[in-house]
């Protein structure tokens, strides 16, 4: 029995589809003053690090605030680790760490006291809270500055202090709202490294909201794109990148001019990028086998054929054009 249970556990760990969803959105809608901000969001988010993307005003921050219980849903609901945000808000908040977008701190307080206070409010006893506050500040790289007043911190240091207060109580889910806002490149790199470390520890899931695609690309495995309060895309980043099977990169030998002319005649777009290289976008019903047929016809060898991977920017722009959910 015990062995069977262990095998089952391992199987569950290997197969992400069997994970219980971190966030389960059930037709979640939020309205402010009659204006819909989030509209019928539906889906199960399971990734270790989920990137929340969308243009300004798409509803990213509202979604985070609603999941934190700051706003009440106008209809539908959501569940975090199986707990309903409408009925178990307090219980959910004990599992969550939150790093707000805006400058948030308590004036005239040293960093270590600030982080300790936040830990105590999360339920840690004073001694444990103090110990964890020191650890969290060392972890984010503010160890040497932990006795300084937060008022004297630079913007980058305040961001790190906000991260420290979000992780001090060891939450299972961490919401990071624009964590790299206003950071210089080294500070940004440090923040990204920390986020990736937390993700890779496997002890906390992360939801990272950002309008900086590069940050999301570097940290997240899955992305959720919002557009006008609706779910435009939710996908695994790696799989989505590979899913575009229309954009091909070819390396050929032979009469390239005739070959690309024939490809153009099939209705495909192409661009010759070098002596033997050509980029092709398949159009209409054209398939890869048609390329081989044309190549054989003109005695052209196809030495290499690869699919171009979409960048996050491509995925994002596609989502903005289409705007339909793909869960």
């Amino acid at each position, binding site marked *: 029995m015990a062995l069977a249970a262990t095998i089952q556990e391992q199987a569950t760990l290997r197969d992400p589809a069997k994970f219980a969803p971190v966030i389960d959105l059930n037709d979640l809608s939020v309205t402010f003053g009659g204006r819909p901000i989030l509209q019928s969001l539906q889906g199960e988010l399971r990734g270790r690090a989920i990137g929340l993307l969308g243009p300004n005003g798409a509803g990213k921050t509202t979604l985070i605030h609603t999941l934190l219980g700051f706003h009440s849903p106008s209809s539908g609901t959501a569940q975090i680790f199986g707990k309903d945000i409408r009925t178990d808000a307090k219980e959910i908040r004990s599992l969550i760490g939150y790093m707000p977008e805006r400058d948030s701190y308590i004036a*005239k307080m040293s960093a270590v006291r600030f982080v300790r206070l936040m830990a105590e409010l999360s339920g840690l006893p004073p001694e444990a809270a103090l110990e964890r506050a020191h650890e969290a500040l060392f972890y984010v790289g503010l160890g040497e500055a932990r006795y300084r007043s937060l008022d004297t911190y630079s913007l980058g240091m305040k961001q790190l202090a906000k991260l420290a207060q979000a992780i001090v109580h060891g939450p299972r889910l961490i919401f990071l709202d624009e964590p790299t806002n206003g950071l210089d490149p080294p500070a940004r790199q440090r923040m990204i490294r920390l986020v990736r470390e937390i993700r890779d520890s496997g002890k906390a899931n992360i939801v990272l909201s950002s309008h900086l695609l590069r940050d999301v690309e570097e940290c997240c495995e899955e992305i959720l794109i919002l557009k006008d309060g609706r779910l435009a895309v939710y996908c695994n980043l790696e799989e989505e990148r590979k899913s575009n099977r229309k954009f091909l990169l070819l390396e050929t030998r032979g009469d390239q001019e005739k070959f690309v002319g024939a490809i153009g005649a099939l209705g495909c777009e192409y661009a010759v990028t070098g002596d033997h290289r050509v980029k092709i976008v398949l159009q209409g019903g054209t398939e890869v086998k048609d390329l081989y047929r044309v190549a054989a016809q003109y005695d052209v060898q196809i030495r290499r054929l690869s699919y171009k991977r979409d960048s996050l920017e491509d995925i994002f722009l596609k989502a903005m054009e289409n705007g339909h959910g793909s869960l």
Partner: protein
Amino acid sequence: MAVYEVTYKPYLGKLTPEWSRFLVIPRHAFRDVFKSKLFTAFFVICFIPLLVEAILIYLHHNVNALGILKVNVRELLPIDASFFRTFVGLQASFAFFVTLLVGPPLVAKDLRNNALPLFLCRPFTRTEYVAGKMSVLLILLSAITWVPQLLLFCFQAQQEGAGWFVDNLWLAGAIFIASMIWILIPALLSLAISSLVKWRVIASGALLGLFFIPSVFGEVVNQIMQTRWGSIISLSALMNNVTAGLFGTFERSTIHITGFDKGVATRIMVSEPPLWVCWFMLFLVSAVCLALLSRKVKAYEVVR
């Protein structure tokens, strides 16, 4: 776990009971409050009247001490309801100044620095936040009002005997309730103002104004209309009436001086507003303060 272990680790230790978490706020706030030497000195001064009160009670019951000081017991204040009421009123004025110094920045500084989301994203409700901030004031003010007053009441009872204690037990209730009114109303007002105004100086000014401007205006109404109903907009008059009611010294009819005729004051009898009106007005003020706090203490203000 040592500080050099720089990895992310969940917390697996025991947690404090949920009901006690609001007390984290006063514990941290007191550190800031008593950092100021000026405030600490003022807080110590607040205990001087209580010391005087204790000496008076002691003298009443110590013949030897009276002999040494050559004072007749009849020359001392009698230890009765009026005695305790006087000291409750005196301590209430100290409590007001403590509120003026401590209250206004309590919520204002969190609002100014957007700290509310940090409090409310934890297993910590808005009610607990307000209770925590209120308890900063209530604990401080209790320490200089009803707690020492009740101890002095017990001291008097111990000196006088069990019979006095039983006969005057209602006085203990009056001391407690009157003191609570004198600390609850200013505390609620200062928190409500603190949630509206982000700047400490303006918040302190507003609190001071709320106590004194309506009092002056009410007195002007009283003089012009030859009534006492103008007092219903004066918080201090309302609390004074309620306190007098609790100590059994409230008189509805009072003498009102309307002017002077050849150096002699002309007087008429006017009626104070009934006690239930005073209680109602104080409840109304408290309700408005709570409604304001409920409206303003939010993680984020929704712009509609």
